[in-house]
């Protein structure tokens, strides 16, 4: 007798939990070969709002964790992903097509990227900070600090690598984030959220939503609790609309080309300058 398939329910990742969309909606995902693959949750603006609330409440704990500890946790994410390699490879092949070798390379690059950014956690402020020469009896330091809650609209094509390239540099520096996964290729993002949930990353630091970018992105851009926005995965047609919405609270809005660069960390950091009297 053949065994009945156990199909996976693909859900959202909000505040360390895996809820369905509050709207009860889902949408159909088709593979590279045009065949049905899954029905992930179709997030609504209220799911997005809840995610922002979680990200905001996780911010003080995550940003005040020591940089070394954040690095350990990012490394741990790489370890957990390594254990799920086959699952990522299978999903990437199903969604993006291509050979096992290409998919495998993408997974390896994504895992290595976590390790690379893990190393940066306790070095970025030394490299990017400065002791400033000033005229007066003061020490004057500038150090980069986290910006706050960052909204991320992940790369639409490289479903795993594009996602990791966007989220790893943001959380490495102490930000928390709300992420909209690739609309047509969201499965690796959901599997990644399962890895995140089991890797000591505090609940709410990363919140991953699956759904329509055109529906969610404007709410993300106009949300006053969000301080920065990565629009790398946004269709250029709606970019100006998002930039206008984001101007209300002077969000930092960036589109990136490189997946591996310290600039991606610095883009969502804030420079703090401290004056300290000499001899006190």
């Amino acid at each position, binding site marked *: 007798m053949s065994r009945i398939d156990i199909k996976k329910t693909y859900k959202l990742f909000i505040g360390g939990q895996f809820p369905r969309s509050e709207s009860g909606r889902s949408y159909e995902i088709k593979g590279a070969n045009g065949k049905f693959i899954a029905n992930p949750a179709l997030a609504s603006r209220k799911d997005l709002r809840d995610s*922002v609330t979680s990200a*905001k409440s996780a911010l003080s704990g995550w940003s005040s964790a020591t940089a070394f500890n954040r690095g350990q946790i990012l490394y741990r994410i790489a370890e957990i992903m390594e254990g799920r390699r086959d699952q990522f490879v299978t999903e990437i092949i199903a969604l993006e097509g291509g050979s096992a070798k290409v998919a495998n390379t993408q997974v390896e690059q994504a895992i290595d990227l976590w390790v690379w950014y893990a190393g940066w956690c306790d070095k970025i402020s030394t490299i990017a900070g400065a002791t400033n020469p000033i005229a007066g009896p003061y020490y004057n330091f500038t150090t980069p600090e986290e910006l706050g809650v960052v909204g991320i609209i992940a790369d639409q094509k490289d479903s795993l690598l594009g996602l990791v390239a966007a989220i790893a540099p943001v959380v490495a520096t102490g930000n928390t984030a709300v992420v909209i996964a690739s609309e047509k290729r969201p499965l690796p993002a959901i599997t990644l959220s399962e890895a995140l949930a089991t890797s000591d990353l505090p609940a709410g630091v990363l919140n991953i939503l699956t759904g329509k970018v055109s529906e969610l992105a404007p*709410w993300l851009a*106009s949300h*006053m*609790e969000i301080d920065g926005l990565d629009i790398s995965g946004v269709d250029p047609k709606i970019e100006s609309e998002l930039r206008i*919405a984001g101007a209300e*609270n002077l969000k930092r809005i960036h589109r990136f080309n490189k997946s591996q660069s310290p600039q991606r960390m610095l883009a969502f950091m804030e420079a703090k300058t401290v004056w300290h009297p000499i001899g006190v």
Partner: protein
Amino acid sequence: MVTLIDGSEASLRKYLAALPGVDKVGADQRAAMLSTRSIKTTSKSWAIDMAIRMVDLTTLEGADTAGKVRAICAKAVHPDPTDFSVPSVGAVCVYNDLVKIARESLNLNGGSHIPVAAVTTAFPSGRASLKVKIQDTQDALHDGATEIDMVIDRGAFLSGKFGLVFDEIIAIKEVCGNRAQLKVILETGELTTYDNVRKASFIAMLAGADFIKTSTGKVSPAATPPVVLVMLEAVRDYYLQTGMRIGVKAAGGIRTTKDAIKQLVLVNEVAGPEWLNPHLFRIGASALLNDLLMQRMKAASGFYSGSNYVTLD
């Protein structure tokens, strides 16, 4: 006026014994069902403003300072200093030694219409002699409190000394006289059953409470929807028997606009629309007000607001 008891403990016991029991499963289910009501657009805007008017803006910490009380008083008068269309809150609730500062500060900010509520009778535990509790209340009245939030003696209630609980409320009511409204805190989280909540509600109402209040905010669970439902049923039943409308104050654990609107739905459906005003329903809260303001901003602007645009309390 209809008198339900003759004032003796025997008649009180007889009355309480005759109260019908609360169907726990039914109460939980009804509260859960009413919590799913969807309140949108203009109804939601109305509900947000009503909830703001019902808030007893509260600070009850050991670390309270005069400065903090002044800050919440300013906020009570104009919850959003950038938008004067936001109504003032229902009252400011503080410990009794800070009543004077609160009263002066409200008056200075143009909030002379906002009452100051004081928690008295050895709040939150209520573990003191009646003499001390009376003095505590007199001090608050002397400093200008026009609402008194007293706690019942839960130890006495749980050991069946209903007469003692009843007499204490009467004694405090006598101190208040016509000078202040009396809110009686049942501390439902310590009463363990809904039957006890119903009994305590009736003891308080029979003893002359103007409001019955769920909790001190120091014990969890506090103002859960089913508990508020049981208390609203009690005030409704009391009204049907006597023609007097007693208020309800839900306090503790109501932090979001969604929670507050759920409470308003309960009020409307269980007690009736007459209770949907700040004279008969209050919400004791501190963090709730910011969430209500953020939701109000969202309704006005069309986009979600953030915690940087409301005060840090």
